[in-house]
């Protein structure tokens, strides 16, 4: 199978940021994303129910360049105020041209 090397960017954040994050990544050029509900604990305490707020887990296949831009934006706008984490993995993507 012909695959393309891309970055898989994962962002975990408070559900309250969902709308804003999605607007941001679209503005930066992302054409798609996948979203799941998630729970979690970290430095800012537990987000294990709707009382405390829940997390979203946002996943994007993107070129290294776009991924970089998104990470940049996130660390500028969110990191000092909100508790949010983000990381990259390498992925071999089928039909990968569509994400470029």
């Amino acid at each position: 199978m012909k695959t393309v090397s891309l970055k898989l960017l994962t962002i975990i954040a408070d559900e309250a940021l969902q709308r804003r994050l999605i607007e941001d990544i679209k503005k930066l050029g992302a054409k798609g994303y996948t979203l799941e509900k998630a729970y979690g604990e970290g430095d800012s305490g537990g987000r294990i129910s709707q009382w405390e707020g829940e997390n979203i887990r946002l996943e994007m296949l993107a070129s290294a360049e776009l991924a970089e831009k998104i990470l940049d934006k996130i660390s500028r706008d969110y990191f000092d105020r909100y508790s949010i984490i983000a990381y990259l993995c390498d992925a071999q993507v089928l039909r990968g041209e569509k994400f470029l």
Partner: protein
Amino acid sequence: MEIQALVVSLLSPMVLAFVLGIVATAMKSDLKFPEELYTALTIYLLIAIGLKGGYKLSITPFSEFIYPALAALVLGVVIPIWAYQILLRMGKFDIANSAAIAAHYGSVSAVTFGEAIAFHDNLKVALLEQNPQMTEEALKLAGGVYEGFMPGLLTIMEFPAIIVAILTARIAAGKSSKSNGETSLGKVMQELLAGKSSLLLIGFLIIGMICGKRGWEQVAPFFEAPFRGILALFLLEAGLVTGRRLGDLKKVGGFLIGFGIVMPILHAMLGVYLGKLAGLSLGGATILGVLSASASYIAAPAACRVALPQASPTYYLTASLAITFPFNIIVGLPLYHYFAKLLYGT
């Protein structure tokens, strides 16, 4: 008679369901409410409260509603301001945390309100059981009836406090509202109004007013008859979360624990007093007291997560959920009722 009120409050299946929830957490039970069920119950309770209040409002003369409405507004503005000062100065909390906690105590809890309604309905049944000949007037003097438009006051008190608190924090922090990444106050207000609980309460209050009696009767079999059963379910879940939060009590420290008990009592007194001034019945004034005493845990946390993200949920959630909420529904209700009776001299 005070005993009767206490018994009515303590033997309610709703309160006991809440206690069971706490016990379950203490026993490390695997009982869990799916988040979706919690959301569904919240939506149900807000709609049910709003709709019925709207219908009642549609049959209330404006002149009867206006003074209680003003009283509610005053409470919603004054409480967060003085709560903020106390937290900052006496509690030594930082600006963000003081403001966030103040927002919670200035705003209101729909579930505490629901339980207050159930308490009064129940009290009426108990009074009538004791003395079936009791007149409407006598019932009113004994606190067995209340104004139907109370959900209107709940709605009025929901968000002013949150705006006041956030504004206070911004002024205190000396920031222009344009600082980097910060949500503008206009946006915060817009988000508050559009927030789940305001939207449902205000929306269905209006729907209830528009539809009137015929509309209400169409949906009452769903939104009225099962209300208390569903409230019991909700309180079971609230107990589960409270139980988890109890472990955080030592983290929040003695000051906040005291704050979470003393402030509601003071606010309740203020609320009952203003309610009397505004011409409410004994029952209505008690419920206004309960509203003042109650701390939000739907609208305020949602707003603080966005507008005051530096504030720690450990403080505001533990205080409002693990201290004030149980205090209000278990001890507070009969206590505020007792206080109202003293004030009304009955």
